[in-house]
C-alpha cells in the first residue's frame, strides 16, 4: 500500500534520501516542504557561486522536472509550524498534511553572536543561496567587508568577497585559522596565502559590538579597536535546527537524537542531516550525511541498515589555497610526528602516528596525495615498513614511479575515490564495465565526483586506467588553442568577474598566448562590448577585416558596398545617387541582394571613404551587410497596397530596422515581416520573423536559409506594434548576452531550448530589463560607421608610395 511520506526541508541529505527511494521504486507518495523558495541544490558549491566561478543554475541538484517526474508535491517557501504526533499531521501555511512517515531534515541555523548591533542592515550570515546573493549584491558597491569567523565557511566567504573587489578583514577568535582542521604551521601558511590576496587576518580578535545607526558602519573589537565595515558576515558556526522537534516532544539533546536507523524517539518520525545527533556526535560535512541518507532510505523500506560514523577529511574550496586535513592531529602521549616542509614552495605536510598507524594528516600547498593518506588513516594501515618514505606519498613506496595513472591502477577495489558520496574504485569500475564510459554517465550512475567535484581528476584516471586507449578525456571544446576555456565559461567569467578589457580577460583566464589569435579575439571583443557597452571600447584590430573596414572583402581584395534601404524602401533620388557613385568609382558590378537592397561590388580599398561620403550626402548609411549584427529587415508591401495585407508590414519593418541597426550580435541577424500568412517576405526562414494576422503579430525565431535550412518556431503572439518592438529587442538582447559567438539564433535556441527563451520573454519584468539593456547599448552603437570613418580616412590610404628605380 502506498505510504504518505512528508519531508520537512529540501537539503542535500533529504534530497539524497529521496533519490535512494525513487531509485528503488519504493511505494511512497512524497510531500516536500522547504522554507527556502527553491528545491535542492548543492550547498557545498555556494563558495564558487560567491566567487563567480559558477552560477546557481550550475549547482541545482533537483530541478522542477525532477520533482515532477517523481510526483513530489512541493511546497517551497513554506515553513512547517507544528507537528501533531497523535493525529500524524504537520501544519503549515498550506494547512494540515497527514503522514504515515515523517522525515525531519531541517538542517542547521547559523550561530549569531549575541552582540549589540547584530540585527543591523548589512549584517548577514553565510548559509544559503539568499545569503550568497545578498553578499554578491553588497559587493557590487565595493567597500569594506568584515568576516567574523576564520573557519571553513568564513574563509570561503572572505575569499569570494575579495575576488569580487571588496576590502576584506577576517576576525578569528582563536590563535590560528581553521584551528579544528589545521595545526598552527598550516594555519600560518594559509594566513600568508590569504594575505597575499589582500585579505587582512586578525586572530585572537573578539567582537564586542557592531556599530551603526540604520545600517552597519563598523565593528568594535575587545581593546576598543574599531574597524570600518559596509558589510559584516557572521560565520562563527552552526547549531542544529531542532525547534520543531522540541515542540513536538521528541528527544532532543544538542541535535534531534536518532538511533543507528536514523529513527527518532517516535518510530514513525525519522531525521537526517545537520539537525541530528547520533551517539553524542553532530554532523556538518556532506559525506556522513550521505551515509545517513542511504541508511535512512533502507530503514523506510524496512531493509536493515546501520549508520556508523567514519573518519572525515576536509578540503578548502578557495582556488589557490590547497589544504587537506584528516583524522586527529592533536599532540599527545605516545604520539609522534613526521613533518616535511618546503618553505619556498609553501608546502607543508605533517603526519601524526600512534602505534605504527597514521591517525591524522595535515597537508598544505601540495595535497595531491591527500586521499592516499586518508586511506591509510581509515584502514589503520601499519606503516612501520615504509616509515622512512611515507611522508613523500604513494609515488615513493616500493619504488613505484610517480605516474599518477600507475598510482590509481595500484589502488585496491575498495579504495575510496569520492569522499562526499562514499564511492569506491570498484563501484566505478563496475559502472564503466556496464557502459558508463564518460564522466557524465559515471556521475549520473554512481554519483562519483557529483558533489564537491574535487575528485573529478581521480575519477577520470580510473576511467583512463580501466578503458586504456579507448579513453578520450571528455573536455568541452575550448574556444581556440589560446585557452582551455569554453565559450560558455568565458562568458560567465566576463560577467561574474566584471572583466572589461581584453588584457583583463587574458590575465584572469590564463591565456597561453600574449594577445590571442584570429579565433578568440573577435569572440572576446564581441562578448566584452555586449556585456559592458558603456565601459568597453571596441577594438577594431580584433575584428575581421569586413567589420574593421565596414565593407565586404572580395576574393581580389576589393570590397563591396551596400547602403541601407530601410525595410527595402528606396526613392528615385537614392537610386540616382547610387547610380552616380557606381559611375564615379567605376564599380564593375551592381547587384540586387536577397535582403532587398543594392550591392556595389569591386570598390577599391582607398576609394571606400569617398564613396561612403557620396552616399552619406544622399542620406544613406551603412547597410552593415558585412557584420555579425543586424543585416536587413525584409518586408512585403502590407496594407498599403496589398489586397490581402492585414497590417502595415512595411512600416513595422522600417521601425524595427531603425531600432535595431548598428547592434552587434553573435552572428548575423536577419529579420522579415510578412503582412499576411501568405508570407511574401519569407519571414519564417529568418532569424526573427513576424507574420501579421488579423488579430496581431506572430513572432517566431530560429529560422535559417543557409548551410542549414530551418523554419522558425513560434515564440509568441502579440496584439500591438509596441509589443512587437519590445519582444524583438528583448529576444535580440538575450541572444546577445547568452549565445556563443558565431552561433545563429537557431543554434542558440537548440542549446537553451525555446521554452527557456519563451520564459525570458514571457516574464514582463525580465523582458523590460532586456529591452532597457538593449536600448542602453544602442545609445553607443546605433551610429553610422561610414560617417565616422569618412571623418578620419587615414587607414584606407597607402602609408607611402615608393618609386624606386630598378638597378641598372
Amino acid at each position, binding site marked *: 500500500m502506498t505510504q504518505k511520506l512528508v519531508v520537512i526541508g529540501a537539503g542535500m541529505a533529504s534530497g539524497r534520501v529521496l533519490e535512494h527511494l525513487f531509485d528503488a521504486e519504493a511505494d511512497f507518495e512524497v510531500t516536500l516542504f522547504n522554507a527556502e523558495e527553491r528545491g535542492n541544490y548543492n550547498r557545498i558549491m555556494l563558495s564558487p557561486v560567491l566567487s563567480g566561478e559558477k552560477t546557481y543554475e550550475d549547482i541545482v541538484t533537483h530541478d522542477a522536472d525532477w520533482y515532477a517526474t517523481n510526483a513530489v508535491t512541493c511546497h517551497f517557501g513554506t515553513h512547517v509550524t507544528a507537528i501533531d504526533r497523535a493525529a500524524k499531521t504537520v501544519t503549515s501555511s498550506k494547512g494540515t498534511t497527514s503522514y504515515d512517515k515523517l522525515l525531519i531534515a531541517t538542517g542547521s541555523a547559523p550561530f549569531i553572536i549575541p552582540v549589540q548591533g547584530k540585527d543591523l542592515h548589512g549584517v548577514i550570515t553565510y548559509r544559503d543561496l539568499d545569503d550568497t546573493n545578498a553578499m554578491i549584491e553588497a559587493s557590487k558597491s565595493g567597500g569594506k567587508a568584515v568576516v567574523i569567523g576564520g573557519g571553513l565557511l568564513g574563509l570561503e566567504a572572505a575569499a569570494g568577497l575579495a575576488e569580487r573587489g571588496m576590502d576584506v578583514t577576517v576576525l578569528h577568535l582563536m590563535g590560528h585559522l581553521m584551528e579544528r582542521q589545521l595545526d598552527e604551521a598550516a594555519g600560518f601558511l594559509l594566513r600568508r596565502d590569504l594575505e597575499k590576496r589582500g585579505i587582512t587576518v586578525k586572530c585572537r580578535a573578539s567582537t564586542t559590538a557592531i556599530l551603526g545607526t540604520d545600517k552597519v558602519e563598523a565593528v568594535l573589537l575587545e581593546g576598543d579597536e574599531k574597524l570600518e565595515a559596509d558589510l559584516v558576515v557572521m560565520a562563527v558556526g552552526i547549531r542544529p535546527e531542532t525547534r520543531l522537534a522540541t515542540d513536538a516532544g521528541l528527544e532532543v539533546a544538542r541535535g534531534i537524537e536518532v538511533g543507528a536507523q536514523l529513527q527518532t524517539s517516535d518510530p514513525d518520525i525519522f531525521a537526517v542531516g545537520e539537525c541530528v545527533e547520533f551517539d553524542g556526535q553532530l554532523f556538518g560535512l556532506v559525506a556522513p550525511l550521505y551515509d545517513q541518507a542511504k541508511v535512512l532510505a533502507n530503514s523506510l523500506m524496512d531493509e536493515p541498515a546501520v549508520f556508523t560514523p567514519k573518519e572525515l577529511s576536509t578540503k578548502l574550496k578557495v582556488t589557490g589555497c590547497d589544504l587537506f586535513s584528516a583524522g586527529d592531529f592533536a599532540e599527545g602521549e605516545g604520539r609522534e610526528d613526521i613533518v616535511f616542509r618546503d618553505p619556498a614552495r609553501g608546502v607543508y605536510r605533517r603526519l601524526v602516528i600512534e602505534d605504527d598507524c597514521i591517525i591524522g594528516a595535515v597537508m598544505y600547498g601540495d595535497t595531491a596525495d591527500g586521499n592516499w593518506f586518508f586511506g591509510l588513516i581509515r584502514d589503520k594501515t601499519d606503516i612501520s615498513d615504509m616509515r622512512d618514505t611515507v611522508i613523500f606519498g604513494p609515488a615513493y613506496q616500493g619504488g613505484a614511479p610517480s605516474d599518477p595513472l600507475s598510482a590509481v591502477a595500484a589502488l585496491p577495489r575498495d579504495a575510496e575515490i569520492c569522499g562526499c558520496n562514499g564511492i569506491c574504485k570498484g563501484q566505478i569500475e563496475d559502472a564503466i564495465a556496464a557502459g558508463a564510459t564518460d564522466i557524465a554517465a559515471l556521475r549520473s550512475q554512481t554519483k562519483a565526483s557529483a558533489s564537491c567535484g574535487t575528485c573529478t581528476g581521480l575519477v577520470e584516471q580510473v576511467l583512463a586506467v580501466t578503458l586504456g586507449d579507448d579513453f578520450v578525456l571528455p573536455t568541452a571544446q575550448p574556444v581556440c588553442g589560446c585557452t582551455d576555456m569554453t565559450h560558455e565559461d568565458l562568458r560567465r567569467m566576463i560577467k561574474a568577474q566584471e572583466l572589461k578589457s581584453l588584457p583583463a580577460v587574458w590575465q584572469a583566464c590564463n591565456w597561453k598566448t600574449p*594577445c590571442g589569435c584570429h579565433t578568440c579575439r573577435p569572440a572576446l571583443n564581441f562578448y566584452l562590448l555586449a556585456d559592458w557597452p558603456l565601459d568597453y571600447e571596441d577594438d577594431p*584590430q580584433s575584428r575581421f577585416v569586413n567589420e574593421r573596414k565596414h565593407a565586404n572583402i572580395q576574393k581580389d581584395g576589393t570590397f563591396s558596398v551596400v547602403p541601407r534601404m530601410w525595410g527595402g524602401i528606396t526613392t528615385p533620388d537614392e537610386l540616382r545617387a547610387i547610380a552616380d557613385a557606381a559611375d564615379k568609382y567605376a564599380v564593375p558590378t551592381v547587384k540586387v541582394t536577397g535582403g532587398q537592397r543594392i550591392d556595389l561590388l569591386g570598390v577599391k580599398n582607398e576609394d571606400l571613404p569617398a564613396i561612403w561620403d557620396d552616399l552619406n550626402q544622399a542620406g544613406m548609411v551603412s547597410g552593415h551587410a558585412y557584420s555579425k549584427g543586424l543585416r536587413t529587415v525584409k518586408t512585403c508591401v502590407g496594407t498599403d497596397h496589398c489586397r490581402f495585407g492585414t497590417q502595415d508590414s512595411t512600416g513595422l519593418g522600417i521601425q524595427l530596422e531603425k531600432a535595431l541597426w548598428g547592434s552587434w550580435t553573435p552572428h548575423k541577424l536577419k529579420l522579415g515581416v510578412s503582412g499576411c500568412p501568405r508570407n511574401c517576405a519569407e519571414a519564417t526562414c529568418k532569424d526573427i520573423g513576424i507574420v501579421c494576422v488579423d488579430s496581431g503579430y506572430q513572432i517566431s525565431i530560429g529560422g535559417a536559409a543557409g548551410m542549414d535550412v530551418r523554419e522558425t518556431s513560434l515564440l509568441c503572439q502579440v496584439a500591438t506594434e509596441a509589443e512587437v518592438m519590445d519582444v524583438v529587442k528583448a529576444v535580440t538582447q538575450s541572444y546577445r548576452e547568452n549565445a556563443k559567438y558565431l552561433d545563429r539564433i537557431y543554434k542558440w535556441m537548440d542549446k537553451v531550448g525555446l521554452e527557456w527563451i519563451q520564459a525570458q520573454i514571457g516574464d514582463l519584468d525580465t523582458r523590460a530589463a532586456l529591452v532597457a539593456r538593449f536600448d542602453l547599448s544602442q545609445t553607443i552603437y546605433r551610429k553610422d560607421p561610414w560617417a565616422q570613418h569618412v571623418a578620419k580616412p587615414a587607414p584606407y590610404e*597607402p*602609408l607611402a608610395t615608393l618609386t624606386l628605380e630598378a638597378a641598372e
Partner: protein
Amino acid sequence: MSTWIDIAALEAVPQRGARLIKTRHGCVAVFRTAVDEVFALDNACPHKNGPLADGIVHGKAVTCPLHNWVISLETGQAQGADEGQVATYPAKVSEGRILLDADFLQQRAVA
C-alpha cells in the same frame, strides 16, 4: 651596407595592425605588433594572394582574411599544416619612425 629609408611615424600604423606601401611592383604590408615591433612582407598570401594587411595580427603572426592561413611575420612562412612562404623585408623602428631597407626593396623590384 643597408640604406634605411624613412617610411612614416610608428603611430601611423595601429598596434596589432598593418598599412600598405605602394611600390611599382606591387604592395608591401608593414605590420606593427602589440609590443611595437615592425615587419614588412609582400601583401599577398601564398595561398590565393589574399591581402595580408587586412588580416588579424596576433603575436608575431597574421591571419589572412580570405581563408585563415596564418603567416609568420618573422619568416613569412605559413604556419601549421599549410605550406608556402611570403617574401619579407628588413624593417626596424628608430626614434619613433618606421625604416625599411631600400636595397632589399630594390632587389624586389628587379626580381
